[in-house]
């Protein structure tokens, strides 16, 4: 038998008002809708263990492996090397969630009709993208919340509170250009192709932007094309280390990449869906 009480009992409809056409959305409820979207996007990405474990655990785990277990003695004698390793892994930590969390998921969800449903259901403007952005920033924050204790307690890095706070802020904002790259790919490629395209950029960006190790001269000349290069210079400067280039230039490049790719992607989403 079907559940007769739920059908016959009109209680859920008590407040139904068939006559009024106007139904304003109070600001509080609108804000709540944005928060709910971000909350459930984060929750669901945490539950995808193939996404959350590598991106949340790997940066600190790899930093500890190289900076403490393998080369701990060398790093203790050369604090600058230790700090460099720290900057490499915090930047590495924000690349993945942005590029994969945006790129691959948007491409798949576009194919699966979820974006169309969200448009039809009148999800608040931009809430879908904003939720993914906040999810990425939350991941970046957690990466920093694991990296900093690892560096202070096990890596014995002499970081001040201000330096920790600055690097955290820089890195959370620094996830934006990686989100924009993922968004750009996700709005153009199919679900399966998007993962391949993201890897096609992710892997070279990790290895030939000078993130982990000094580059040969011919590669060093082109390393400024990668956002990772600029973000790492900002983090190095925030730790009082020697860095290349001017802060303003780095910020302009990172902001430029973010704005350009986001505008192109949103135009594409509006036109093609």
């Amino acid at each position: 038998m079907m559940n007769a009480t739920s059908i016959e009992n009109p209680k859920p409809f008590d407040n139904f008002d068939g006559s009024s056409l106007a139904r304003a959305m109070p600001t509080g409820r609108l804000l709540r809708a944005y928060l709910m979207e971000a909350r459930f996007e984060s929750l669901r990405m945490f539950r995808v263990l193939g996404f959350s474990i590598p991106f949340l655990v790997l940066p600190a785990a790899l930093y500890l492996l190289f900076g403490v277990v393998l080369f701990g003695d060398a790093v203790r004698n050369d604090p600058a090397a230790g700090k460099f390793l720290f900057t490499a892994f915090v930047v590495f930590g924000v690349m993945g969630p942005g590029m994969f969390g945006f790129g691959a998921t948007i491409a798949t969800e576009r194919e699966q009709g979820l974006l169309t449903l969200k448009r039809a259901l009148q999800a608040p403007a931009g809430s879908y993208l904003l939720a993914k952005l906040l999810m990425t920033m939350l991941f970046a924050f957690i990466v920093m919340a694991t990296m900093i204790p690892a560096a202070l307690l096990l890596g014995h890095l002499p970081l001040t509170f201000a330096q920790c706070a600055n690097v955290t802020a820089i890195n959370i904002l620094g996830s934006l250009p990686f989100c924009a790259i993922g968004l750009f790919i996700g709005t153009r490629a199919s679900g399966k192709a998007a993962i391949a395209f993201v890897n096609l950029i992710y892997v070279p960006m990790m290895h030939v932007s000078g993130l982990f190790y000094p580059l040969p001269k011919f590669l060093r000349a082109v390393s400024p094309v990668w956002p990772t290069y600029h973000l790492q210079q900002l983090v190095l400067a925030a730790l009082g280390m020697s860095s290349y280039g001017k802060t303003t230039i780095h910020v302009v490049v990172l902001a430029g990449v973010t704005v350009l790719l986001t505008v192109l992607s949103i135009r594409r989403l509006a036109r093609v869906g």
Partner: protein
Amino acid sequence: MSNEFWAELSSVKKRFGKTMALDGLDLQVRPGELFSVLGPNGAGKSTAISLLLGLLKPDAGAARLFGLPPFHVEPRRQVGVMMQEVTLAPELRVREHIALVASYYPRPFTPAEAMELTNISSLASRPYEKLSAGQKRQVQFTMAVCGRPKLLFLDEPSVGLDVRARETMWATLRQLVRNGSSIVLTTHYLEEAESLSNRVAVLNKGRLIASGTVNEIRALVVRKHITCSTALGADQIATWPEVESVTRDQQRLQISTSNSEAVVRRLLAADSNLQELEVRRAGLAEAFTELTQEAA
């Protein structure tokens, strides 16, 4: 364009490449009715719904939702939608999916109320990926009604549902209409349209070929069916001029005719022992087939 209709297409044309998906279509959805849009595949049903939801813009003509262009936020907030092909986040639980969609509306049901309404409370904590195809449709239906919408668009809602789940969905739809909502339903199950609808529109090749109440649509097909138990032979009756076809089903004869009164008179005159006489009008399914074939 008036507020008399909650959703309206006026002389709408929509072309995709070389295909004319809608060719001067007029449709009106009135307050408090269940309106079924029927038509063979490719008739333009989904395009018509997409235009009413503001997902597409017409090449010519106008779409209105509560008297406003459908891409405006206000009219869309009064609409619930269940689409045919959509995959939701597999990792989220049923309650979470419903809570998220409910948050888009000003005065929604709580997730618990919505799930009680559609009889899926037992699925609340299940991850979406663990549900059967029919259960997923039930969740999508709950998402469509959770915002207390005045107007509900359902695209093939009962595909994959078992009989019980379909009955629950139908009961919920009737309850929504009793409470003043309107529902626009596209379906391939003609018995669904027949059982639920106040009005029906039949589309073919982007045009409206018939619209009216279920009875009015059925009446468009003049043919009727006579069944009876008789000693008369099928071959003999088939020669009568008013008779279109005769088949024998065990002991009973099935006669199709456009002039049932004349055939019944003649049957009774020819066989005084004739029994179990029954005259039926064409069903919606038959009317649909005939209308769409005529228009093809």
